């Protein structure tokens, strides 16, 4: 009975809310039909704002009319709300019979709410795909897909007048992708060995105390915001590398790929290390004991038994790290350059997909020039590439987990 009463109260408030939400809309439509153009002016008059210029009589009349309407609608609102509340009460009252399973009904409703919440993930994915795809299609109507995918020149600056130099922007994404890959490769060269070796040390050699201290410290690296890394890369690492290169007689650009890649590598160390750590721990102890009993040293056991056994998981972890490196934005925005160059020299300045997206979209309001649409096309490619990497990595990781369970 108590639960029924609860439901009753709950239901009638919902109905009230619905009615309240409905009525102002109907109210808004009425004056709009009469005087479409002057609605704003009337509204101002109603709310007694100051309007520039003289008030015409018709407008004044309309405003009065508006006021009348508002009064009547307020009255109507009250009537409708009260009557609907009574109606709901009556209906529900009639429904309350010993055979009513109120709990089941309420729980069914809650269950649907829960289902709706869990589908938000799918809607997000669909939203990402649609929003990026939609703008990309508009972009590919202006620039052919083949030029975008295989073109070797990237200079998205569109001139304002058609007779200016470089009026037609070039949208070949290859140099942008080459830059992304170069920086990611440098990052992985830093992160993969350091992350893997520290995972091995922590899980195989370190005693409990050392592990309890060192592991969280390494995880801190993952918790630092990327904008902080970007600042560190741009103001500490990049000048250091430039000066060091200057001492060695090399000409290093102040926005070198090396600096961005190095710092990005530091950021990724914990991803590699914590994932590899999990997988190394998942290798059954029996395999280790078997190797020791054959007389292998600890390092031989690790190299020849544990690593091969954990390899799929480690590869999956590294793939996840690569996808993170490709999608990383702030470090490269602050430390890498804007010039799209097709080079493999880590001392030169390169640009990445994320840098281009940011520079093309920040501060731009128009959404039909190829320049801004190109950002969405880059975003589409970025999304697809990282999605592919993630799917492969998650699949590998999942399969590997099942193997030892």
């Amino acid at each position, binding site marked *: 009975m108590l639960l029924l009463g609860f439901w009753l109260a709950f239901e009638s408030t919902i109905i009230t809310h619905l009615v309240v939400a409905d009525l102002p809309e109907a109210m808004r439509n009425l004056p709009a039909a009469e005087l479409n153009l002057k609605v704003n002016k009337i509204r101002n008059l109603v709310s007694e704002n100051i309007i520039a210029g003289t008030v015409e009589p018709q407008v004044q009349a309309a405003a009065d009319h508006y006021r009348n309407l508002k009064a009547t609608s307020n009255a109507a609102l009250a009537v409708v709300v009260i009557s609907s509340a009574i109606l709901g009460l009556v209906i529900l009252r009639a429904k309350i019979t010993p055979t009513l399973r109120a*709990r089941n009904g309420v729980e069914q409703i809650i269950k649907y709410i829960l289902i709706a919440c869990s589908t938000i993930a799918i809607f997000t994915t669909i939203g990402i795909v649609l929003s990026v795809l939609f703008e990309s299609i508009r972009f590919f109507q202006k620039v052919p897909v083949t030029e975008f995918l295989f073109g070797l020149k990237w200079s998205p600056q569109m001139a304002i007048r058609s007779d200016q130099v470089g009026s037609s922007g070039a949208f070949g994404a290859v140099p942008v992708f080459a830059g992304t890959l170069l920086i990611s490769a440098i990052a992985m060269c830093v992160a993969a060995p350091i992350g893997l070796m520290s995972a091995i040390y922590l899980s195989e050699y370190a005693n409990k105390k050392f592990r309890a201290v060192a592991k969280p410290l390494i995880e801190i690296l993952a918790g630092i915001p990327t904008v902080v890394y970007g600042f560190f890369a741009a103001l500490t690492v990049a000048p250091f590398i430039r000066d060091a290169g200057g001492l060695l007689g090399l000409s290093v650009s102040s926005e070198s790929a090396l600096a961005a890649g190095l710092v990005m590598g530091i950021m990724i160390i914990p991803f590699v290390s914590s994932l590899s750590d999990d997988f190394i721990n998942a290798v059954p102890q029996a395999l280790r004991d078997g190797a020791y009993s054959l007389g292998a040293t600890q390092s*031989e056991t690790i190299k020849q038994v544990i690593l091969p056994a954990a390899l799929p998981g480690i590869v999956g972890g590294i793939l996840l790290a690569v996808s993170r490196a490709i999608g990383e934005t702030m470090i490269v925005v602050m430390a890498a350059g804007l010039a799209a160059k097709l080079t493999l020299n880590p001392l030169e300045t390169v640009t990445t997909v994320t840098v281009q997206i940011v520079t093309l979209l920040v501060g731009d309001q128009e959404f039909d020039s190829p320049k801004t649409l190109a950002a969405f096309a880059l975003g589409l490619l970025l999304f697809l590439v990282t999605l592919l990497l993630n799917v492969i990595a998650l699949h590998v990781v999942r399969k590997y987990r099942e193997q030892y369970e």
Partner: protein
Amino acid sequence: MNNSQKQLPGNGKQKERTLDIVNRGLKKRYRAERRFRFYGLAAIVASMVFLSLLFISIVGKGYTAFQQTFVRLNVFFNPEILDKQSLATANYQGLVKMSLRDMFPDAKSRRDKRMLYGLVSSGASFQLRSMVLNHPDVIGQTLKVWVPADDDVDMLIKGHFDRQVAEGERRLKDKQLTWIDRLSAEGKIKTKFNTTFFTAGDSREPELAGIWGAVVGSFFTLVITLLLSFPIGVAAAVYLEEFAPKNRWTDLIEVNINNLAAVPSIVFGLLGLAVFLNFFGLPRSAPVVGGLVLTLMTLPVIIIASRSALTAVPPSIREAALGVGASKMQMVAHHVLPLALPGMLTGTIIGMARALGETAPLLMIGMVAFIVDIPAGFTDPATALPVQIYLWADSPERAFVERTSAAIIVLLAFLIIMNAAAVILRKRYERRW
């Protein structure tokens, strides 16, 4: 591994014993062992070194920003300038200039005067204005007022200024240097705790710029994120873990969530730009939109953490609840959820900490604008703390470098507090079943 085992025992004279071969190789193998162990340790040490370098460089650059240089002026609140009728719009700049001229009468030429006025921040006149408006009785008196110095002077006092550089390339000229030296010899320059940094909004002048506007913007954004992502995330986790049948549909949802957790954050920014701004027409630069985008980003994190918290609750509790006649929903709401809540909260705090540090998606939805006012609501234009850091990092003035570092210190302090809260929560309520 042990290929010597293949040898047959017995024919000892021609062939050596297995043990000898093993022993001969042993030294080398132990060396390899030690080397390998050293590599492991070196890797950990390397990441520690990176971590400490990062902190040292940022703290070393930033700690000075908590101090600000002030100059003492003898200001005569001239009643001729301060007309009672228009106190708010009086020429306060003139007051500052007059007291500077009184201090250094040797500045005669127009260029000298301009250099002299450059010693004091343009915020000095605002300070005098609020003084006069709050206490109108100061008019006619001469008071000693500490006003903020210009950022170049500030840098000089803090030792970030190289006097050896040729005069043409310096931001402070020789004459200004002698004036400053005289001021500090007379004790008219000192550094005080920098309250402006914590109370002001953004500014083009480093000595007047503060992080409060960005902090408030971040706060509004996070409130929206928390209000949306926590209930939705918990609801989704409860459904997937407790109610969902194992079929293709729920599999799809699961794969989706795992993928979303690894999608680059900038793609979420693109989504926000295309859907929230262009399609729904929400205002640019508003914390609402930032909160929505960050909600979508943190949802997977919260769902994954909540699910593992739910699986940690043992089935015996569920069965006991069902056994005494609770419905499935009652079982979840009354028994499973309260037990799983600490784990869910921990996951939520970690997700919030990530959202607080996130910059890239906010750049996409226009939260990078230069905003001086402190946002008052969810739809006011605002920036967030990490975005403010990004903006300041781009500014050329030397003084902004230390402000940026100081803002980073503040951001890291927030993150450390949040993560510490998560750790404490976990330690306190973690139960092993």
